[in-house]
């Protein structure tokens, strides 16, 4: 069974290498260790292998997409990280509703990496029951 106290609390699933590195760097500055998955397949493997406090999830990834990961988490609620943050480049108006039992926040690209990392760090400190509802976090300042 996966351990209940994750060594590395944050998983970043993002296929764009530049954005992935950006998130890792921003989190490292806040002393939050993270691991990365370059696609949905890797993300699912990491989610099966260990517990995570926070998952930062891109939607548009090849073969196994962010939506697939959300569906898998909906069906495997015990593997759900405390906080699931979706990052998306899709238009707000066009983004279909994401399963609120899985997704805690949606952040639209382009985002401010320092604000996102602050939010992730805060999420690491919160307890599971505090955040159930989906909310839209605007880090772009408009």
């Amino acid at each position, binding site marked *: 069974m996966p351990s209940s106290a994750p060594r590395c609390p944050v998983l970043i699933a993002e296929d*764009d*290498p*530049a954005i992935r590195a950006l998130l890792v*760097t921003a989190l490292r500055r806040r002393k939050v260790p993270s691991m990365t998955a370059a696609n949905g397949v890797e993300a699912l493997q990491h989610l099966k292998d260990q517990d995570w406090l926070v998952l930062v999830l891109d939607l548009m990834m090849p*073969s196994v997409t962010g939506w697939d990961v959300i569906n898998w988490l909906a069906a495997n609620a015990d593997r759900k990280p405390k906080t699931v943050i979706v990052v998306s*480049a*899709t238009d707000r108006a*066009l983004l279909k509703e994401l399963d609120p039992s899985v997704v805690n926040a949606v952040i639209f690209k382009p985002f*401010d990496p320092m604000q996102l990392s602050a939010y992730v760090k805060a999420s690491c400190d919160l307890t599971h029951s505090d955040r159930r509802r989906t909310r839209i976090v605007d880090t772009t300042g408009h």
Partner: protein
Amino acid sequence: MPRSALYSLFMQAPALICVLRGPEHVFDLVNPLYQRLFPTRELLGKPIREALPELEGQGFFELLDRVFASGETFTGKESPARLDRTGTGTLEEGYFDFVYQPMTVDGRIDGVTVFGLEVTDQVLARRQADEFIAVVAHELRTPMTSILGWVRLLRLGDLDADTYASALEALERSTKAQARIIEDLLDESRIASGKLRLELRPLNLGPIVQSAVEMMRSAAEARNTMLVAQVPEEPLEMVGDPNRLEQVIANVLANAVKFSPEESRVEIRVSHAGPWAEIEVRDYGRGIPADLLPYVFDRGRQGGTTERQGGLGLGLAIARHLIELQGGTIEAASEGDGKGATFTMRLPLHADAAAASFMDRERGERAASLPSLKGVHVLIVEDDIDNRKVIAAVMERCEATVECTTTAAEGLRRIERRNPDVIIADIVLPDIDGCAFMERVRAAGRDTPALALTVFSRPREQERILASGFNALRQKPIEPADLANEIARLMEIRVT
């Protein structure tokens, strides 16, 4: 206007028209365009609810009732209607602009006239355009996220050397990605409006492939993908547009990298295959399912219909267009899921092959637009062998008689012997300048129409060329059809 004229006006009207009488809306008159919506059904004499039962529940009957009862006109814009056009019970959605106009007889409402236009194609085209714009926005945001994000981190000013270096790399890569998207959009628009122009010139393919590989190297490295290039040392000479060729090769490579798993390998191999240069790009990604293979070069197609892989889906469509414009072909092959894919491009080597294939294309696509120069004697003064061959091939295709020389002196001698009907001359010649050549032709009292081909584009240079006696000037490289039309125009001017 006689009644019969009104009737034919009604029957030939470019709109869907019918007249419905009474509170039951019985079809009293139906014009052919309206009838064509329901080709298998008899409408005349039937109440609309009976004639078109599939419209029940779509709101149209209720509207007709209201217009009949109130006498107020109703106008519908892009209203969706599900119709059984084939009479088989299958409903198809269409969109209509229409007017329900009450008809009054002796101050009493007697029926409703329906005027309509089907606008389904327009609605679907606009919807497609909207979706495309959403994709463009999405695709521009991804590199933008990286650019803004890294700039934000750089501003903090305390990144370690490695992170700093990779930040700059990410910035460069993302900016280039955005530039690429913008270029693709412009190309797509140029292709759609037929305004894409190539700058054809003799070239060696090897260095162009190398440069495309270098262009893609950082994108491949970012995914830990190895780019392996095999280019023969012997020159692969052909006529083409070097920038566009590099773009096509980079595009196909980018595609291979994108569809490869991380830490994979993409190979590009260039070889000689008879009269062709062959460029093969092989990846070990997830491959292309057999049913999608025929569509990989279609605009907006990617790996699947429901899932997108980033990018505008224009790259391969543009690549095919550019390759075909240069007389080549591009094909995709894949053994299926998980087996990777191979893209093979073939480009005609040497000017002969290029000219022949341009000519094939002209024959196939716009043979009608190539003017006939039958009986016209053309003198070509051009020292570059490839250019000369292309020009000669174009002229011969127009059935002109062609004579070629490589120097101005030889050109003057030929003119002395037999005055041609038209002269095509390069400006940079091995012995004397093309302008000096033309001045001597004119000084000898010959008014033979003459076209200068030049790589110079500055206005002062153009003035100098025209002042020397050339009747027209065209920038090199010139497209075959343009060249042929220009010569035909010069011949016409002389006749009139």
